[in-house]
Every structure is written in C-alpha cells, then in structure tokens.
C-alpha cells in the first residue's frame, strides 16, 4: 500500500516535507556538532595558529604575520623533507599498486584455498603501523636482526647492511616495510575490480586467438581503470601522510635522512616547541595533498572505461 501511495502537491504535502526535514536536522545535529568541534574547528584554528609563534606550552599566543611561511620556504630542512616525501610517495604508489595488482591476479586465478591466500595477503594490513615498525626494525637491526644473523651464519658478514642507520638505505627500508603492509589493502580493491569483469569478454578474446598477455593488456587492464583510480589515489594520500613507520624505525634519521613533511610537522611542533611553525608546515602538506589528489583524479579518470 505504502508503495502505491502518492503525495499530492498541496499544503499538506509541503508540511510533510517540512516535518521530514526537521526530523533529519535532529538526526544530523549530534554528528554535526561533534564533527565541527573535533574536525572543522581545529582545522580552521590551525590556519589561525600558523600565523603565530606559539610554542605549544605557553598560554600566551603572539601573532607574527607571515614569518613562519617565509622561514618554511627558506628552510633546507623543509626542502629535504619535501624531497623525501615525494620519493617515498612515488615509490610507494608504484610499488604498492604493482604488488597489489599481481597479488590480486594471482588470488583471482588460484583454484584452491582462494580465501586462505586472500587472508594471508591481507593480514599485514590489520597490524598496527607501530607494531609493524618495531618488528621490521628488529628484522633490519644490524647487530641482532634476522637478515644480519642469516648473513653471519652463511659466512657473508661483509654483506651486512645497517639498513636503518645508513642514509642510502633507510628510506628503502621504510618503503619495503610499507609495501609489505599496504599491498594487501589495495589487492582487495583490484580483486573487486577483477571480479567485476564479465568472463565472457576474456572467453571471446581467447576464442579469437588472444594470448594471456594480450587479454590482460587489452581487456583486464583497461577495465581495472576505475579500481586503479581509487587505489592510486588512496595509496598516494597514505604515502603523503606516512608517519608510524618513520617514528618507530628511524625517528627521521639518521640525521634528517628520512624526515618527511608529516614527520617534520610533528618534530617541529612537539619536539622543538614551535607549534605555530609546525601548523604552517601542516597547511603546506594539506595543500600538497589537495593538489596531488586533484591532478591524479583528472589524469586517471581519463582512462576509465565504462562497461
């Protein structure tokens, strides 16, 4: 009955609409208040703080105009962090997505224990970044780590590398750890994309004589474009915000070798007692994420294929 009921466009109908609207407002209001208090207000307030010299401890806050921004653009340390952020982000986006795509194809094609493999590859995603950072820091440890001990046992001690203590390898160690942790998540996105491709497309291509690579190149890959848009964008945002692994594994070091923008925001704001400057840096990070995300959406959407 309810489905067939029609509401006449009368004064009574308008009243009902108003009633619905007022209900909606009451439902939305609690979430709106909380979101405003804990997200919107702090975000807007950070713009305000970025123009101050607040140390994060004192009760008094002084305005210093654009000094924080001027210092930021003149700082070698910030450019180094920006460079590290870009290296890390590009490497992670490429490696995580390649690894995720390979895992997704393997899991999709495997005949037995599909769920088991899916769970195994997804498992690292469930681990906390901090815990995983500690585990990998132990694995990479020069003196007591698994890799070093293995090399010692097979008589290749000279091949030992101080992964986290050498500026040439520390960033690589973080990339390895993050790819290991993150790929499973993106695998699920690709897997969903793969399972959405009608099998008859591949069957028809096979009948027409297309080999595996040709089927992947001309059917699977183009049809995964929307999954790739989401996956690449999420991995890029995740990489730009990477924090846990750096905090636990290298503390931004050795020296400043693995400091990223997110980490420098924390170090400057909390460790060096410059909350105002740290907030200015966080605004720059926000703008960077926004620009990169918009460019990505623009570029990746172009190659999406509608079925």
């Amino acid at each position, binding site marked *: 009955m309810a489905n067939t009921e029609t509401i006449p466009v009368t004064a009574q109908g308008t009243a009902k609409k108003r*009633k619905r609207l*007022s*209900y909606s407002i*009451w439902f939305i209001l609690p979430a709106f208040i909380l979101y405003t208090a804990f997200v919107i207000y702090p975000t807007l307030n950070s713009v305000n703080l970025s123009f101050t*010299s*607040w*140390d*994060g*401890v*004192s*009760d*008094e806050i*002084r305005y*210093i105009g654009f000094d924080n921004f001027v210092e930021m653009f003149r700082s070698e340390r910030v450019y180094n962090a920006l460079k590290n952020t870009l290296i890390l982000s590009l490497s992670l986006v490429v490696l995580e997505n390649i690894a995720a795509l390979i895992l997704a194809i393997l899991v999709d094609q495997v005949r037995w224990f599909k769920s088991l493999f899916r769970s195994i590859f997804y498992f690292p995603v469930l681990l906390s970044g901090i815990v995983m950072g500690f585990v990998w*820091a132990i694995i*990479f*440890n*020069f*003196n*007591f780590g698994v890799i*070093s001990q293995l090399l010692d046992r097979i008589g290749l001690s000279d091949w*030992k590398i*101080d*992964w*986290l*203590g*050498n*500026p040439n390898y520390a960033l690589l160690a973080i990339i390895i750890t993050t790819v290991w942790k993150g790929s499973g998540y993106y695998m699920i996105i690709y897997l969903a994309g793969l399972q959405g491709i009608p099998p008859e497309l591949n069957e028809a291509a096979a009948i027409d004589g297309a080999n595996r690579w040709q089927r992947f190149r001309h059917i699977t890959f183009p049809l995964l474009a929307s999954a790739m848009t989401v996956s690449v964008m999420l991995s890029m945002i995740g990489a730009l915000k990477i924090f846990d692994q750096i*905090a*636990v594994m290298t*503390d*931004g*070091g*050795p*020296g*400043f*070798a693995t400091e990223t923008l997110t980490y420098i925001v924390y*170090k400057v704001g*909390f*460790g*060096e*007692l*410059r909350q*105002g*400057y740290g907030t200015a840096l966080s605004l720059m990070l926000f703008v960077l994420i926004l620009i990169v995300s918009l460019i990505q959406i623009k570029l990746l959407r172009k190659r999406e294929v509608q079925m």
Partner: protein
Amino acid sequence: MTMHTKTMALSVISVMALSLILSACGNNNAGTTANSNGASSNEPANKEVKFSIGATGDPATKQAMADAVAAFTKANPNIKINDLSEGGSMAYLDWLKTKEAVGEFPDLIEMRDTQLFAEAGKIAELPQEWLDLVADAPTLNDKHYTAPIVGAFPHGIIYSKKAYEDAGVSAEPKTYDEFLAIQEKLKTSGITPLTFGGKDIFHWGFWINKFFMDDMLADDPNWNAKRTKGEVSFTDAGPMQAMTDFTELFTKGYVEQGWASTADNQTASMLVTGKAAQLFSGPWMFAQISQADPSFEFGWYPVPDRKGRIIVNGTNNLQGWAISTAANEDADKQAAITEFVKFFFSKEQYTKFVQAVNGIPTTKETITYEASPQMNRVLEVMNDPNTIKSMQINAFWGEAQMPTQWRNWFYKLAQEWLTKGDFSADYMKKADAEWDANVKANAAAK
C-alpha cells in the same frame, strides 16, 4: 499536542538533560578546584584521591620507580596513582610535550626541562615539605621547582675485563691520548672497542657532552650565555676540537659499525656477548649489565681529557620531581602527592631506589647502601677533590640556558655528518645559526 511537537519537545529535553549532565560533570570538577584553591591541607585524607606520575629512565630506573609506586599505593589504598611513565623510544621532552598538548600533563613529573615548563607556568613552586627532604635543590629565579631524585650521574667507560686482558690493557688511562691508545689495542686484538646506542637520541648526549665539558663548559660555565649573546661560536677552537675528537671515535673505527641502529637498551647485550669491549654510559647501566649476565666481569672509569683532568657531569641541576600547577591548586591532590614524595625519600624506600639505580643520594638524611665495586669506583671519583664537576650543555639554566629544542637537533646534525663522513666547520656554523634561530623563536613565543 501533536506527534511532531511531542517529538520536538522530547528531543529538546533530551539535549538539555545531556547538557546538564555534562555541565554537572564540569561543575563538579571546577568546584573541587575552586574549593581547594590555595587551601593546602596537610592532613592525609582518607577519601579516595587520584593523581598521575610521569617519569623516564632506563629499564632499571623505570622498574625501581614502578616498585616505589606499588609500595606506596599498597600502604595508602585510598590514593590511586596513574603511572603514565614514558615507555617508548620517544625523546622524553617530546613525550612530555605531547602529554601536555593532549591534556594529560602528569601531576607529579620527573622534570628535566625545568626552565621551559616553569616559565610556561606548567609547574609550581615546591611545597616547603619537599624541600625539607633534600639536601640541595637549585633555584630558578630564586624559586624551587624541582627536588633532585638522584645526584647528577657521571659518565664513564664501562669495560669488559676479559677484553682488556686479551688486549693487554692493565691500567686505566691517565690522559685522553692514553685512552685512544687503549682503543687501538682493543681494535688490534680483534674486538670492536666501543658500542654506541645511537638509535636513541638521548644516548648521543653522553659522548657529545663529555667533549663539550672537556673543551668548553668546565672552563667556562658561562659559555652558553656567551653563545646566546654572540660572543662565542661553535666554530671556535674548543667546540671544534670537541666535535673533532667525537667524530674521530667513529672515523677511526673505534665505534661499532651498526651504531645508528643500536638502541641504548641493546648496549648491555653488546657488551656481555663480546660484540664490543666498552660502553660509555652512567652507573645506571651496572644493574642492566649484571642482569644480562651475572658472571660478566666489568669495570668503570672516567675518561680523562687531553690535559689529564677528570671532568664529569656532577653538578646538581634543575632536574627532579616537580608538581604541576594544576595539581598544586588541588589541595587533596597536593597532599596526596606530598605524601608520595615523603614516602619516596623515606630512608627505607629511598635506599632501595638508589641501590636499584646505582644512584647518588640527594636527601638530607644520610643514605648508605652496599655498593658494587663499579659503583664504589664512581663514588671514589665523585668524592675526589681533584675531580672537576661540570654540567651537560642542556642542563644550564637562567641566562646560560640552551634553547631547549637545539639539543636533539644538534644530535641529529652529528648523525648527519657521521653518516656522510664530512665533518667540517660548516656544520658548526649551522649549529650557531640554529641556536640563534631557536633563541629568536623562543623569545617570540614569550
């Protein structure tokens, strides 16, 4: 009343009721503070009181502190202590600052960066009852903010007796050159001379401050103040010599290869497993080493400077127990915390604590405990009138205060030149520039 009006009314009443409940919670809190302002009660109340503690240290110190808290709460069941003590690898200042930012600043704090938090109004002047317990509590602007938990620890070489014997080393060095000769002998004998917990930023302070004290601070305790005024520079002969000597420990291969990823708490293992012959650290490590291997034989000595002087970190400074301003304004909390501090410094409890951490007592009441041979050597050095007692660069206060944020930044700079292998005056120019920028930033924040 229509259904719509009823619902509206119910919603409004619910929201108001919730607000009142929340306000009531707030008022209750505010009421406690208002009632207690300034009314310092000395009577140990029987009603339940809660306060939080924040402290740091090596595993032995943390355990000794946890034992003190457990013993106190057992004896005072009405007082609940929330032990927030730092447990990760984060620098203590970062941790404390983060706690402050999230509104969890401890009520009773082991304070290290006293001037910073005192000037920000986060810690209060100590109650007289606390000061009556300790022998020497230094002042900041004529006010007492901290009661020293233990006397300043001297750093020195903790060495494996077996490694020394194998390398043919039979006597302590009398000069820094003799110390370097020992390093060569150890290296030649096939053992890595020194382990170094470079993964933990605080560990850098041990060696760096040894050289800063030898070449700058012992002879000129006003060096920091002069640096702030621009009268001296890190590119001067003293600081350059200090950091050249420090760097050479690494470039000459005396320090283990994996120093950057060795944590401070792994150095004891490095020593007892024979991966390294020595460690430069303080007496708090003795317990850790003995626990790691009770049969391991080791000794301790201070490293002399080039002139043969023994200069150690030994002057009492502003570090110690502090009470937060908020806790001090709450009479019940203040009384409970004072009870804890009295308990902590009581003869029986404090003896256990200093014995566990191999500490130098700071109480007015004489404390004696059975010290290990290594600790006896420490006490011998500290009681020797020829020993020059100085302070770490970050421990000075007043005009001579180092900009707080400069310390860890400089340690990271040292990591950078060590990993790149290109130490030069340019790095020390950067140290000057950062110091000046930090001074300027701190002044702007006040």
